[in-house]
């Protein structure tokens, strides 16, 4: 489903190019969940952005459903993101002037594949049904992140990419959100690539990779 | 801006203008010379190109009642000490000044026939004093020479008339044998600080004309500077004075001075103190002191003793003594308003005091001019003029 081959990526800095990823290989099967761990600056987020087609590697290839992303133009990559991917950010990135229901449906609608029943179910299961008419600023952090997860899953993506989805939450909320995320991912059958620095968060996932200085340092089953 | 302030501004301008002109002329002629102390109204400045008053000339009448345009300055100067029906003392002054702006032949206009082109500037002062008040007005005109009518200001001799606008001094003499100045009519109206004043007086001379100094040449400083100067001090006056619409019948005595010169003051003389006194018994005394310009930089003192029958005796500083006794603060200056006059040859020792200290003439060339009372060995009334303070 997702395949990264010999990915290298460096950023220009005033002190010369900074190598973030050096020949990383990674595969993710359909329905599989993978935790990507590592220190700050180990290249976790960069890898996630490359996987989402938001950024392009200097070297190597990213393939989604067997197709190399580098061969696609921007509109096609954007459509691919709309239709096949779900993104969850640490900062939620909700639209403050849309209410809960509209935020949840935003991506699905943009992708032209809104499933009203599924959206309702998501609202129910995320515990947001009673606040569908509220605005993001009226929600707690945990509720906002649940809404962001809902927005990502509403399109029924093939792959959910999550960047520290619980990084801004306290432990209880984090556990609650994580449980819900895994449950929904499991039910919808989509694959999950989650960046985290917390072993506790990584533990329930199928596999775990550790990035260190731009290379895969170790893999756990 | 109130009118008084406005008029002050203009007067200052005019005064400045005239002084500056004359100063400029002086500067051209005396380049490099040490600037002398400034004299009153620039009268001490050198006036090259003008005819100079010199002793030895004899005066001729009625011609000399008229203008002498080739001399720089000239005046017809009338003062009168009057009383009204209630015995209130009043004083009047009527003066016409002529000043040449340029020497004869100089600056002759391209269009000499234009009546507006003139090198003569005329100025008239009219004043009326009561024991409490002092009303002053002044008017200006440029000289005009017109073939068939009177200009705005001027003096003619046949019949005698001196005028500026409707301020007139005219002869009433019909007898061709008599002097034109024997019988005069003088009139003026003015407005000062919201008050209307005016007078209309008939003057009749009870004595002859008096020529001062040396047959009319009156020396003004030790170095020979001087003017032509004669007077008619013997007028008896009848007429009316009007203040703010109220008319009073008045009578008294008047004194007319005629003087012309191109160099009245020496360059170091700052001003003068001038007395014209009617003494009881009919004698008259003219006395003046020119400050500076005497022997060794002292004052120059001169005068005339005039008998009741008009005989004149020249006075010099070996006989005549003029001493300021009291100074008063007038218009921001210290002006002597009480004097002691001594003339041992006539056994005269009198105090001359101003009826009111504030007789300041706030005109283009400001000076002090007012009625005085004489007490002491002789009594009388008269006028005192003080300039250059």
């Amino acid at each position, binding site marked *: 489903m997702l395949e990264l081959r010999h990915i290298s990526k460096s*950023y220009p800095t005033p002190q010369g190019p900074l190598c973030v990823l050096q020949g990383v290989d990674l595969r993710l099967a359909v329905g599989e969940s993978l935790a990507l761990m590592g220190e700050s600056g180990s290249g976790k*987020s960069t890898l996630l*952005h490359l996987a989402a087609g*938001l*950024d392009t590697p200097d070297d190597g290839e990213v393939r989604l459903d067997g197709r190399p992303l580098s061969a696609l133009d*921007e509109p096609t990559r*954007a*459509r691919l*993101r*709309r239709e096949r991917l779900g*993104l969850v*950010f*640490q*900062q939620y*990135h909700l*639209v*403050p*002037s*849309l209410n809960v229901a*509209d935020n949840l*449906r*935003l*991506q699905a*609608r*943009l*992708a032209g594949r809104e499933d009203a029943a599924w959206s309702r179910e998501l609202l129910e299961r995320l515990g947001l049904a009673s606040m569908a008419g509220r*605005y*993001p*600023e009226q929600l707690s952090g945990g509720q906002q992140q649940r809404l962001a997860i809902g927005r990502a899953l509403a399109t029924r993506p093939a792959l959910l990419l999550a*960047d520290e989805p619980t990084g801004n939450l306290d432990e209880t909320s984090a556990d609650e959100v994580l449980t819900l995320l895994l449950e929904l991912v499991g039910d919808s059958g989509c694959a999950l690539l989650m960046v985290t620095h917390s072993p506790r968060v990584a533990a329930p996932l199928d596999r775990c990779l550790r990035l260190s200085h731009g290379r895969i340092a170790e893999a756990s089953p | 801006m109130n*009118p008084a302030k*406005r*008029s002050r501004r*203009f007067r200052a*301008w*005019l005064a*400045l*203008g*005239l002084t*500056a*002109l004359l100063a*400029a002329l002086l500067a051209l002629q005396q380049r490099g010379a040490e600037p002398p102390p400034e004299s009153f109204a620039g009268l001490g400045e050198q006036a090259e190109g003008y005819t100079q008053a010199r002793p030895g000339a004899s005066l001729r009448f009625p011609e000399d009642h008229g203008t002498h345009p080739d001399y720089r300055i000239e005046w017809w100067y009338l003062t009168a000490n009057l009383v009204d029906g209630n015995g209130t003392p009043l004083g009047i002054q009527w003066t016409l000044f002529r000043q040449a*702006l340029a020497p004869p032949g100089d600056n002759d206009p*391209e*269009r000499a026939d*234009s*009546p*507006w*082109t*003139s090198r003569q*500037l005329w100025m008239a002062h009219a004043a009326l004093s009561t024991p409490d008040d002092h009303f002053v007005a002044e008017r*200006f*005109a*440029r000289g005009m020479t017109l073939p068939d*009518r*009177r200009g*705005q200001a001027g003096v003619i001799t046949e019949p005698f008339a001196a005028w500026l*606008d*409707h301020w007139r001094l005219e002869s009433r003499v019909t007898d061709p044998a008599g002097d034109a100045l024997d019988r005069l009519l003088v009139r003026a*109206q003015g407005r000062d600080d919201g008050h209307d004043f005016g007078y209309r007086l008939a003057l009749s001379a009870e004595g002859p004309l008096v020529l001062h100094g040396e047959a009319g040449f009156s020396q003004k400083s030790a170095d020979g500077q001087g003017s032509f100067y004669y007077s008619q001090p013997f007028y008896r006056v009848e007429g009316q004075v009007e203040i703010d619409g109220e008319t009073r019948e008045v009578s008294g005595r008047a004194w007319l001075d005629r003087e012309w010169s191109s160099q009245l003051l020496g360059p170091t003389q700052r001003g003068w103190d001038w007395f014209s006194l009617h003494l009881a018994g009919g004698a008259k005394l003219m006395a003046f002191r020119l400050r500076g310009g005497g022997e060794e930089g002292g004052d120059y003192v001169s005068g005339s003793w005039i008998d009741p029958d008009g005989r004149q005796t020249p006075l010099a500083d070996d006989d005549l003594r003029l001493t300021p006794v009291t100074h008063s603060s007038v218009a921001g200056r210290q002006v002597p308003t009480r004097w002691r006059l001594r003339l041992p040859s006539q056994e005269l020792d009198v105090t001359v005091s101003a009826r009111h200290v504030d007789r300041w003439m706030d005109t283009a060339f400001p000076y002090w001019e007012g009625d005085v009372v004489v007490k002491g060995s002789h009594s009388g009334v008269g006028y005192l003029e003080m300039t250059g303070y």
Partner: protein
Amino acid sequence: MNAASQRTAFLALFSHYRRHPGQLAMLLVGLWVASALWSGVQAINASARDSYARAEALFSTGLDRIERRDGLPLTLDDYLSLRLAGAPVSPLVTGELELAGGSRLEVMGIDPLTLPEGSGFRTAGGTATLADFLQPPYRTRLAPDTLASLTEEDDTLPPLADGRQLPPLELAPELPPGVAVMDIAAALELLERDDLSRLLVAPEARLDLPQPLVRSAAENLAAPGQLTDSFHLNLTAMALLALVVGLLIVHAALSLTLEQRLGLMRTLRALGVSGRALVSLLLGELLMLGVLGAALGILSGVWLAQWLLPDVAASLQALYGERVGSELALPWHYWLGGLAVTLGGLLTAGLGTLWRAARLDVLGLGRAQAWRGQFLRQLRGMALAGGLLWLIAGGLLAWLERQPPAEGLTPGFVMIAAGLLGSALWLPPLLAMLLAALARLLRRRPLAQWALADLQLQLPRLSVAMMALLLALSANLGVGSMVGGFRLTFLEWLDQRLVADLYLRPPPARYEAAVDWLEARDEVATLLPRARAEATLLGSASSQRQPRPVNVYGVTPHPALTEHWPLLASQEDDASAWQAFARGAAMINEQLALATGLAPGQWLRLSSPTGPMELPIAAIYPDYGNPRGEVMLTAPHLSERFQTAPDSIGIVLDRQVAPGAIAALRRDLSQTLGIGGDSLIDQREIQRRSTEIFERTFAITRALNTLTLGVAGLALLSSLLAQTGQRRSQLAPLWALGVSRGPLVGASIAQLGGAALVTAALAVPLGLALTWCLVAVINVAAFGWRLPLHVFPGQIAATLGLAVGVALLAALLPAWRLWRTSPRTLLTEFDAL
């Protein structure tokens, strides 16, 4: 807090601008344009006032004038007779000299010796002495700006066209522009005259004048400042509008910098900087920026004024015959005033910011995102304030309806200001409501829905710029319609009123000869003599009216004239009004009718040299461009009662006349009668001159209007630029969700274009309301005549287009920047804090 820690805190606060130089630029730009337009107009006003003051000092320090009733010049005899009778009159001769190079100079010959004490002529000193002034070669006194307009070189006067020289130059800054003053002897010589134009006398002087002479009181000669007040009030109102628009930018920039520095300020508070210290630091920052902005603004304002002044001067000369120097003369208080207004405006704009900083909640960190509740509160406040302002405007309108029309100038402007500001305040609530409604409507179109939702998000920031746009557009439309309508009406009126083909102004002595000669000519169809006089409109027994000076105008009620002459109101119909007029009734102009309330059917009492006259009023006629009240009689009636001969003749030519007839007539006139070509004016020439006057009058208005619109565009651009960073964090997630940059840029442009279109749509009714206020309230009060309301659809369409154009132009740069944003930059939005 000691100085060092204060400095540290200040630098921390100010470091914000190092990271966001755009905001600093926006603040300064706002201050700069606000103060530049304001001080520019004030510079013009100050210069004009200086010119008036100089003119008033010279001409109307209460000096009455004495002229001959028959209009002939006075003689030296006239003058001397008065002087010798004691009348304190002073002679004056005026005339025009042509200089080499073609420029013309007005010359006044005076006699400084007889001028009433304290009159401006006398005090217009210069440094030349009186003797220099009175004596050949005399002196030419004129103001430095007059000299500059005559010659390129610094201090030499050009010779006359015929080669003669003017007297030596003497600069006198207190003289009005365009006038040279010299001694009367010199002036008579240069003008080759030996008579006098008129005599002057102090108004308090009592005079008995011989019958041929007439005295005009100084107070009847309207002071220039008085006439032109309304013109300057108009300018000031325009400048005030520009100031408000500029301050809106400042306000937007300040709120933005505050919002973005809230975190920083909380940190500072937490680190021990007291609330008071924080406020004083912000205040210090404001003042620093204010002084800088004001300095920039005032300098550009002076430059702007220099650029506009020639037009203003031309307008004033055309409208009121007042000369205004073409060089700026700025008193010291002008500079201080500009600084004060800029700083005052800045503080007003920054008051909210300071207030919020003072009430800063140290622990409120988590609530920075609560924009929605805040925005709703803000909208409610705006709606409330806007409603209040509308109430004020409505109340003023109701009050104005019951006032005499001539007294409503300042209240009229206040009403317009309240109405405009009220409408501007209503704009954001209206836009928000519209967006919410549209968002509901378009929920099936997700990108559109997002764009609308996102526009709501931008609204707090954008609304200020939109308000500025609304104000500028309404003003543009309102003033444009007023000028356009005026133009239509004025030109039509001019066409109707100028019925004669030629106008001849013969010298009074040759008037009769000219009439006889013209009547004998074949090509002349009709002669229409005209006459003029001055009179006093006396109060009548029935009214408590104050006597007021009026012009009396005599015309010949020939059908050639009456058939075209427009009337505004008559007792029955126009034909009977003209019949009554021919029988001896009067007509009055609209200015007089509005000022006095006189109406057809009523009687008026007029002073005349032959005693007071009672006249019925037959009709009211429009009289555009005339600042004074006027009474119209037949020319013979006027000549008889005012003992003055007609001064000009309208010549109606035969229809079949050959094209060269006018030139032939002109030639014959000068050959047979010795009447110069200048005395004969072609109707087309008058039309051309009047149109030119008209165009010039409104050139300045148009220029200011355009500038204001430019400022509004700038406001839009700067607020867009200022929020670029914020926009990125809104756009990046959408991009990540799979909307590529193309549609995002498109959506951004559509957002702004749509908002501008809605704003413009609101500006249309507002602009029309403004037009109505201008023609029906302001014009009546300022000029004394009312204009019909004209609506120009093309202009409205142009306004709508202009608004969208300005918005798109302003959106272009941010959109381009968004388009060029690299994915990496967008990705930084996702970096964890």
